[in-house]
């Protein structure tokens, strides 16, 4: 009974935790941004302004849920749900602690890549169904950006897969017991972080919704709960990418080898994820938005060669260590 109920309960916990986490993140991000930009951010409502989360939620829930008459109604309503569903599915393979995960499949990493690649439809179809030129341009940009960055997002992880010899995320964490992959796969980590930001289209890579040229890009026509779904999807994406960075490169639930494992595994995991999220917020505060052609040429002319070099070096070192030469 409890054996079978555990994944179901955990899935419910992740569902609720994801939504609540995304809501709190909106406040946390604005406070951090305020701190780094030498201003306050939302600090009026409740202790440290955390009541802002509830105020925002009430505002979004009570807004008029409107579909523009010129939009493609069915696709317009379907689009925001796609990103939330895809990102939530992605959490199914994340190992939060030993035995604390929904499923441990032998293709866990590929499952994660598949789910992030499905999330692109949300932005694409949202932009198309809006029947608005800014939304269409935003959708087109996002499609080109996400399909391009997906290529080396997958390739940058192959070094990790080669060393650990498995697509299973549990095996990958277990392979980092002595040395985390952030030391042996520096290039892979670099490319994965950049591709991760581009995949979740956050600043500085939020060209699909660049407000200085496209008003609000793909979600120009969206308001109320449907807009909130897009935002929820974006923050879920941020959390998912952070979880994956921690799992793949920073030892998942393992503590650093030189300190030991004196915290419970889940606490190590949460601590590291929080640090990575803060790093993403810092990036948003520090780096301006690039031009669109700069973004694409960075991807194909810099990121792709780096990943290929990383693959060749990793393969060569692995063969050398096994005495293949």
């Amino acid at each position, binding site marked *: 009974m409890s054996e079978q109920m555990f994944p179901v309960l955990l899935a419910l916990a992740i569902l609720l935790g994801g939504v609540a986490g995304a809501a709190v993140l909106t406040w946390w991000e604005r406070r951090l941004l305020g701190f780094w930009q030498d201003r306050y951010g939302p600090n009026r409502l409740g202790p440290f302004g955390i009541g802002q989360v509830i105020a925002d939620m009430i505002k979004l829930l009570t807004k008029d849920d409107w579909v523009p008459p010129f939009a*493609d109604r*069915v*696709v317009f309503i*379907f689009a925001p749900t796609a990103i939330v569903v895809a990102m939530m599915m992605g959490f199914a393979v994340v190992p939060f602690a030993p035995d604390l995960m929904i499923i441990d*499949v*032998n*293709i866990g990493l*590929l*499952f994660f*890549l*598949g*789910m992030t*690649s*499905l999330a*692109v*439809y949300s932005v*694409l*179809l949202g*932009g*198309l*169904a809006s029947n608005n030129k800014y939304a*269409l341009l935003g*959708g*087109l940009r996002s*499609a*080109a950006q*996400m*399909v391009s960055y*997906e290529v080396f997002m*997958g390739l940058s992880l192959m070094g990790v897969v080669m060393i650990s010899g498995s*697509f299973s995320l549990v095996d990958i964490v277990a392979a980092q017991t002595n040395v985390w992959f952030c030391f042996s796969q520096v290039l892979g980590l670099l490319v994965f972080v950049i591709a991760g930001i581009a995949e979740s289209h956050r600043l500085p890579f939020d060209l699909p919704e660049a407000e200085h040229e496209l008003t609000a890009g793909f979600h120009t026509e969206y308001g109320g709960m449907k807009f909130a779904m897009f935002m929820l999807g974006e923050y879920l994406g941020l959390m998912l990418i952070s979880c994956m960075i921690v799992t793949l490169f920073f030892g998942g639930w393992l503590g650093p080898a030189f300190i030991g494992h004196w915290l419970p595994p889940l606490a190590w995991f949460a601590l590291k994820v929080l640090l990575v999220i803060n790093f993403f917020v810092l990036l948003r505060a520090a780096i301006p938005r690039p031009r669109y052609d700069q973004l694409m040429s960075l991807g194909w002319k810099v990121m792709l060669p780096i990943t290929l070099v990383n693959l060749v070096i990793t393969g060569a070192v692995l063969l050398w260590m096994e005495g293949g030469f």
Partner: protein
Amino acid sequence: MLEIILFYIAASIALIATVLAMTRANAIHALIYLIVSLLAVAVIFFLIGAPFAAALEIVIYAGAIMVLFVFVIMMLNLGEEGDARERGLLQPKIWAGPTLLSLMLFAELLYMISTIEGPVSMQVVTAKDVGLALFGPYVLAVEIAAMLLLAGLVGSYHLGRRYLEREV
């Protein structure tokens, strides 16, 4: 038993979605049904013991190739005019011939399936097996595919460059 129920659910979703994909006049709606159909096929792959093929089906077909299809439709932006033309293509005299030929193939397939005893395959094909097969007995096919892709890449670069030069 559970696998069989799951298989029939996934298979019927795939069939219904494919039929709807063919009969929709709006290209975007048709593509969404096609994506659903591909996802259902991925579930079937997973159920018959090919998780790696299932993952590739989602990552490559649903996640990349169909995105490019939607991308092209967005660039063309056909709208109501395109819908009207599509509706014109759904006349019996256009689909009767292909349907007849497909029905003959379907009858052949039914006959072949009915002659097979028991489950087709209960062996799980892991990612490692796929890799060993690709770079073992099928290495020639992989190399030929690589050459073909390279030729496509060079060709599209050539065409794109000529276009850029004309603009300047």
